[in-house]
């Protein structure tokens, strides 16, 4: 079988200048020097922060409506859809007589992958992903956020549908009549 191609020759002994390593060193230092005059790319993180986009998916949080009411009605859709099963809800009755509300609403932030499915699935627009992207914890227990903490993270979002005010308007008149009956019975 004939040989194909030629074997590579060992490189010969380099010249005197090459053997001093000076050209290679100068070449390397020239690259270093050139980089010193390029624009600096480092973001000095704790002092300088990044401009977070509006639709950024950070940690999830519960919101209140403009009446200060917890918008969540404990329908368990987010708990059902959550891929890493980070949400745990326990429902309770609330005094409007129509909807229920969450008694316990825990999100395990270590499990949460900020996918946004909970925000997408929520029929009451009660859970949103905030733009918070830098949170750490020193224990597992600390990273389970309870209802109060989630509500304080979420803050208030105005409700465009005004479902609750209509409900409470009806509820107010009903309770008014009930109150009147109670007064009459007295």
């Amino acid at each position: 079988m004939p040989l194909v191609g030629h074997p590579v020759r060992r490189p010969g002994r380099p010249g005197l200048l090459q053997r001093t390593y000076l050209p290679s060193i100068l070449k390397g230092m020239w690259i270093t020097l050139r980089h010193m005059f390029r624009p600096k790319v480092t973001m000095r993180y704790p002092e300088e922060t990044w401009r977070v986009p509006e639709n950024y998916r950070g940690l999830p949080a519960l919101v209140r409506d403009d009446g200060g009411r917890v918008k969540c009605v404990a329908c368990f859709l987010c708990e059902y859809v959550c891929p890493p099963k980070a949400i745990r809800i326990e429902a309770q009755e609330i005094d409007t007589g129509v909807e229920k509300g969450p008694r316990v609403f825990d999100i395990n932030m270590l499990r949460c992958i900020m996918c946004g499915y909970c925000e997408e699935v929520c029929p009451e627009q009660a859970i949103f992903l905030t733009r918070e992207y830098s949170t750490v914890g020193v224990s597992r227990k600390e990273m389970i956020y309870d209802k109060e903490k989630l509500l304080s993270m979420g803050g208030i979002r105005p409700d465009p549908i005004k479902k609750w005010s209509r409900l409470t308007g009806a509820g107010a008149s009903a309770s008014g009549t009930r109150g009147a009956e109670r007064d009459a019975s007295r």
Partner: protein
Amino acid sequence: MTGSAATREAAARTEETGELDSWVMTTRLADYVAWGRKNSLWPMPMGLACCAIELMAMVAPRYDVARFGAEALRFSPRQADLMIVAGTVTKKMAPAVKRIFDQMPEPKWVISMGACASIGGVFDNYALVQGVDQIVPVDVYVPGCPPRPESLIYGIVQLQRKIDHQKLT
């Protein structure tokens, strides 16, 4: 020469006024050692999945963890003192993670980076360790899937605070 002259001058001034504080800084040994430890964390990159990409981004020029003295990523556990577990720890990989942690010299710390390493993440199945804290002691948990490099930098800053309060032994 100027240095020794300044020292002599300062010593003379101390003899005159008794202001030792003007040229001597005193500290406790524990604080001094903690200062040294926290500002030269040498991470052992335990990159097991996609979180390792963000770990690389943290070391890269844009985020540049060298500003916190933790840029010397050592791939040899004998030269590292901070293990950053980045990614899904499978049950097959767990003995290796444990062994590498055991090979690191004391004092050593562990950052659990990302949902998978912290608590298993979306993978609640037979193949995954549900949290690397079941095999090694974790100091700081960084949530996210994956966490941003800023988040990990914040985790390192938190760890530095923790080291600052640690005792000497």
